[in-house]
């Protein structure tokens, strides 16, 4: 009887786990079924490297949006990664436990703020600041990068903090015994030892940035042209789907699904490389 119960619960858990997986499979199949016809019709090269996006005239080129996605994500990395890594070093090495107990929940809270709130805040405060002090329309790559940099902080901080905490205490003791200062220990020993975890954290953070939609629609300006400077508006792959899906029918809709395929592949590559790096050690 007991054996039977054990077996049964095992099966049930397997079934539930499979259902989660099958949802992923269904979504993947669905995206590809809807998106592939237009890619084969336009040609994969013309779709990915085409410069003109005008669905009403049958032009489906998403290269400006790929450039948009990459530049906003890169901007977010430049602004967000140093802050996040310093923050995780501070939390693991320097912060007294009282401060740590305030910081950790605060950062988790940051992860829980809905993206539309970030976007709204960006439109009302960041965009006018940029317009008044740096020029341009304000809706820009810079505005998007600032918002995304804040949004990826929790991901990067918590994962790199975990990988720093996972280092054996003997590393620190040995370094101190050899006469290294605290900073030397961090810089020459702990950071290199936790490198793979930190790099994975950054990649996962970038994956979050490249997939973010709502906040970016609101502050990026959504122009379908290759930006000339960080003060120019741009459109990312996600915002292309988000902004046009309401009206899209037929081929236009297929082209949005095809945009989803490209996004899907980029995020798969990012996640796979994060996994590869953490496993390699």
């Amino acid at each position, binding site marked *: 009887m007991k054996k039977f119960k054990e077996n049964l619960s095992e099966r049930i858990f397997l079934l539930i786990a499979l259902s989660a997986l099958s949802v992923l499979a269904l979504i993947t199949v669905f995206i590809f079924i809807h998106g592939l016809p237009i890619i084969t019709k336009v040609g994969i090269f013309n779709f990915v490297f085409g410069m003109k996006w005008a669905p009403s005239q049958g032009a489906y080129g998403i290269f400006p949006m790929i450039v948009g996605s990459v530049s906003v994500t890169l901007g977010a990395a430049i602004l967000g990664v140093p802050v996040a890594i310093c923050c995780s070093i501070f939390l693991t090495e320097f912060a007294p436990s009282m401060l740590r107990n305030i910081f950790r929940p605060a950062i988790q809270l940051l992860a829980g703020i809905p993206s539309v709130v970030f976007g709204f805040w960006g439109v009302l405060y960041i965009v*006018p600041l940029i317009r008044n002090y740096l020029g341009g329309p304000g809706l820009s790559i810079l505005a998007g990068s600032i918002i995304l940099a804040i949004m990826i902080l929790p991901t990067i901080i918590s994962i790199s903090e975990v990988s720093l905490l996972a280092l054996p205490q003997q590393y620190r003791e040995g370094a101190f015994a050899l006469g290294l200062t605290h900073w030397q220990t961090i810089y020459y020993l702990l950071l290199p030892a936790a490198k793979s975890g930190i790099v994975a954290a950054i990649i996962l953070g970038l994956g979050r940035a490249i997939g973010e939609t709502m906040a970016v629609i609101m502050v990026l300006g959504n122009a379908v042209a290759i930006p000339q400077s960080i003060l120019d508006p741009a459109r990312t792959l996600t915002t292309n789907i988000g902004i046009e899906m309401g009206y899209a029918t037929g081929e236009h809709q297929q082209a949005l699904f095809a945009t989803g395929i490209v996004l899907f592949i980029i995020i798969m590559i990012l996640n796979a490389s994060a996994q590869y790096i953490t496993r390699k050690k």
Partner: protein
Amino acid sequence: MRPTIVNLKAKNRKIGVLRVIFLLLTVSLMTACSRTTGTGIILAGSTSVQPYAEILAEEYMILYPDAEIDIQGGGSAAGITAAQSGTADIGMSSRALKTEEKSLWFVEIARDGLAVIVNPDNPVQNLTLNQLRDIYATAITDWSPMGGSTAKIHVITREEGSGTRSAFTELVMGKTEINPKAIVQDSNGAVLQLVKDDPNAIGYISLGLVNENVRALHLEGVAATRENVLNGSYNLTRPFLFVASSQPTGIAKQFIDFTISPQGQTILSSEGLIPPTEGTTK
């Protein structure tokens, strides 16, 4: 160990309650779905017409509580397709029908003006249609030739597929294309908000939505007002259409009759729309 077991029991009960709620939701959803197919009609299409259709439907359902009117968005193109295929009883369009769509039955329920708006701090008062086209094609990039300050124009447009954009393209741009460098926003409200905040921005929205935070430009010397749309001197206007595959019957006909009745028209004009021009029913 004891407390955990108690906790688990409480959790089980919670899950039980959740299950009941879920079941109730499913049942109510199913009944809701089956009802709309019975005595109800479906309207689908332009998101510019949608808010007005919702107000009309509310009033209509006060008069006829039995009728169920389901209103969906999707854009003018989707609305016309839905009417053709019969997925919707009535399609809503915020642009005139194209020649290949002329076989459909349609009625013009109202007209809507397009206003070109700028920030109240912008000294420019008037644009010619040519200047407006050049601004959107970015042949003019600075406010100074029109008498404004020497500042770069921040051009704001709507997204591909929007009825407002296609009306603007048709009425102003003609064969010229809107420059892809223009900022794209996905609603009238977002355009309004940007122009309100940016002294160098220019955008276009539905005339009924212009408020004191922005200023509507004169076009070719004509002010963008309801009166000028009515007397025909301001011609940046577009029709709001109800479309159907054939002469409507039953509730669909009743709802359309209500819309074009004096009572329906009063509702529409109090919401800022303009009465249709004569002889536009087919």
